[in-house]
């Protein structure tokens, strides 16, 4: 097991490296000059040149790439062009709301997704099954930004149950800060629930027809025990995979949802950075998402190995 983990960890290195290369060149090839954005509408050419020089943007791209790579290996992502602080610091600061949203959405998505999926599977081809299928289909078919706007319109603008947007940090507002995060989390949970419900349903259906379930049935075990003890446990593998693979989708979703609800998380920061070409922040955001994604998937694979002894050590 330990060797397996080490091997998997080593495999991450080339992946992250490729991500870094892509991140660097994508951001530097973007049209739009951050220097001119900083200086404003009426900047003169000499002002532009002066700022370019002081930001080191007048150096050749290749030189900048190697210096940048050397720095990020040391954990230094540079300074934000706008936020007046080191990127890693800013990223860390903005992590909390994003994490809250992602975890809330994932918890809501997993509970309702599992529930819907199980209900559908045990009521296969009955009304509840149809209901669950339809609901989960809607979950994966509604554009998240549209759903977010609709939720905002109904629950914040018309009913006034939640603030329209914004965020108060946990340290200032305590549990009040969750009021800001509920709608964004629900938006994202909707899609997660849809994905998880669909996978749970089909995995459960698959398991329920396996021989050992039939054996259990013939032994006269109660339906509840069969479903929850045997079938559910054995259906978890594909469900966990879906959760892991879609965590990246979830993180991508936070980019849009945070922008709509104006929550100062990593996604809002990333979109903002793209819109004004805060290059170090864009680079760090991309690498951050990629690292989270590969780590989550590493955990998924490890839990796979843990849950299914057959593929352990391989």
């Amino acid at each position, binding site marked *: 097991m330990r060797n397996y983990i080490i091997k998997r960890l080593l495999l991450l290195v080339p992946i992250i490296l490729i991500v870094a290369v892509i991140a660097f060149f994508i951001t530097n090839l*973007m*049209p*739009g*000059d*951050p220097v*001119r*954005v*900083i*200086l*404003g*509408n*009426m*900047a*003169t050419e000499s002002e532009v040149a002066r700022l370019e020089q002081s930001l080191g943007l007048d150096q050749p791209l290749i030189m900048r790439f190697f210096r940048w790579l050397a720095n990020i290996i040391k954990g230094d992502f540079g300074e*934000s*062009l*706008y*936020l*007046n*602080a080191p990127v890693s610091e800013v990223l860390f600061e903005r992590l909390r709301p994003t994490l809250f949203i992602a975890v809330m959405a994932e918890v809501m998505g997993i509970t309702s997704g599992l529930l819907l999926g199980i209900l559908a599977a045990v009521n296969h081809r009955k009304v509840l099954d149809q209901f669950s299928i339809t609901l989960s289909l809607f979950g994966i078919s509604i554009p998240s930004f549209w759903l977010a706007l609709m939720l905002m319109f109904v629950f*914040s*603008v018309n009913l*006034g149950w939640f*603030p*329209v*947007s*914004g965020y108060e940090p946990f340290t200032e507002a305590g549990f009040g800060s969750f009021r800001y995060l509920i709608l964004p989390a629900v938006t994202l949970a909707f899609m997660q629930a849809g994905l998880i419900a669909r996978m749970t349903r089909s995995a459960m259906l698959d398991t329920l027809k396996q021989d050992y379930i039939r054996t259990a049935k013939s032994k006269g075990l109660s339906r509840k025990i069969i479903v929850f003890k045997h079938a559910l446990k054995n259906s978890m593998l594909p469900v966990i995979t879906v959760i892991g693979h879609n965590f990246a989708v979830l993180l991508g979703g936070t980019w849009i949802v945070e922008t*709509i609800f*104006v929550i*100062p998380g990593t996604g809002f*920061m990333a979109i*903002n950075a793209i*819109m*004004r*070409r805060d290059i170090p922040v864009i680079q760090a955001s991309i690498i951050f998402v990629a690292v989270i994604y590969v780590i989550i998937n590493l955990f998924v694979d490890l839990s796979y190995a843990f849950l299914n002894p057959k593929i352990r050590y391989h």
Partner: protein
Amino acid sequence: MRKEIKITAVVVLVALVFSLLLTANVLAQEEDRYGGTLNAAFQMSVAHLDSDNSTDSLITAMMNHVYEGLFEFDENLNLTPHLAESYQVGEDGLVYEVKLRENVKLHNGQTMDADDVIASFRRWLELNNGGQLVAPYFDQVEKIDQFNIRFKFAEAYAPFLNILASPVSNQKFVVRAEEVVDEFGTDVIDRHVGTGPYKYEEWVPDQKLVLTRFEDYTPSSREASFFAGKRTAYLDEIVFNFIPDAQVRVSGVQTGQFHFAEEVPRDQYPLFEANQNIDNVIIYPDRMSMLIYNNAEAPFDNKYARQAIAYALDFEELGYAMIGDPQFWRLESALHEEGNPWHVPDAGEGIYGVYDPEKAKELLDQAGYDGDPIVILSGQDNQMERQGAIAIQDQLEEIGIDVELQLFDRPTVVERRSKKEGWHIHLSPFIKIVPDPQIHQGWTGTNKWISNWDSEESREMDQIFAEMLREVDQEKRYEIMERMQSKLWDSVPYFNILDYSRLHIKRAELKDFKGSWQPFFWNTYLE
């Protein structure tokens, strides 16, 4: 007799007590005004707060509370001495002597004097966009004594005082503490020591700027009027929140989270009108939508082609498409609005607002236009630019002119339009409130700003401009202005389509708020 005296005494006594109570009451009311934190929702965040190192006018809008100018404009755009006590201009327009107000305290506790002004001025002259306009004509600044300064010019430069107080971009000259100027030099200042009624407390980039009352503030003795005169800091604290989404700013005011929101959707005006907790603040049309040609690229290197577009567009239809409700926009052909001393009433007669597609086509033929698509380059993030570009494309295509629309995010637009080729028309909001014709935002002369104008006509315009710079006499300058305006409408390197207002909203409990071109929060209080 005695009785009368008694009665008189009683009456006097009652009157005395009464008036005392009244005064106390008034004083108490005045006292009541103090206190509270004001939360304002602003549209955009800024990269830093050093006005000399940027052209982002929002910096000045916020830092007006922290820094003050030697001169400031009042409600009627009259130049008023502010940190200056008085001034004298030499007859030839080459020397300005300014006497400073004494005993004005800086936020670091020191008294502001000539050294602070001179240090700030030199930095402004070197870095600030306004300063750079002045610099070629400027000679030197001299300290006469602790509170007297002499500005000397090499060549006469008429707009000097107006530019010192300019509301355009970040051109305004503000006084900073000498020690800060020395410490930062040309670098971006992030320690702010000024003379204003509020001091810098905290800045969280992208989120908020917090200012707190400066207890030792020394107000001007002049009558309060917009930026000029007496400033009283009733509010304990002002928080500028940066909220890019308009709907969020609106909801914040609706729920009471914010007391003021900048630039909210004009189409929601009736909703605010119906809400008794919210007041609409319509700003006097202080923006104009400017259609700018790339004068270096065919077909618009020819003035007939440029004129043609003005004939080809239905300006009124554009008003509805760009801005919406007609109470927020009006057609205006002159660069300066009515009421401004530089307003030229008959500007653009015969071409402005004349919708004549046939004439437009004739003019295009005359210019030898070959039918290549015309590229309109504009930003996605500004409603006027975006919707104006779409509407102009539609109108031009309707009369058979091929148009390619290029709408990008700000960085791309800024980069592309700084080039000499690849675009033909760009829309841009200009600040209308301009106290001097020579400090216009994107002054078009030979190769000024982005219009790439370099021809016989542009050099003629340069000459008119230079003549106006030298002329100190107001009436003669106005005559030159008229010439400039008619020249502008003949050669049309750019033209103003219409003037429009912005809509701000505020909570009803924010009292005595004056809606000016840049929102300010002194002399206002929370009830």
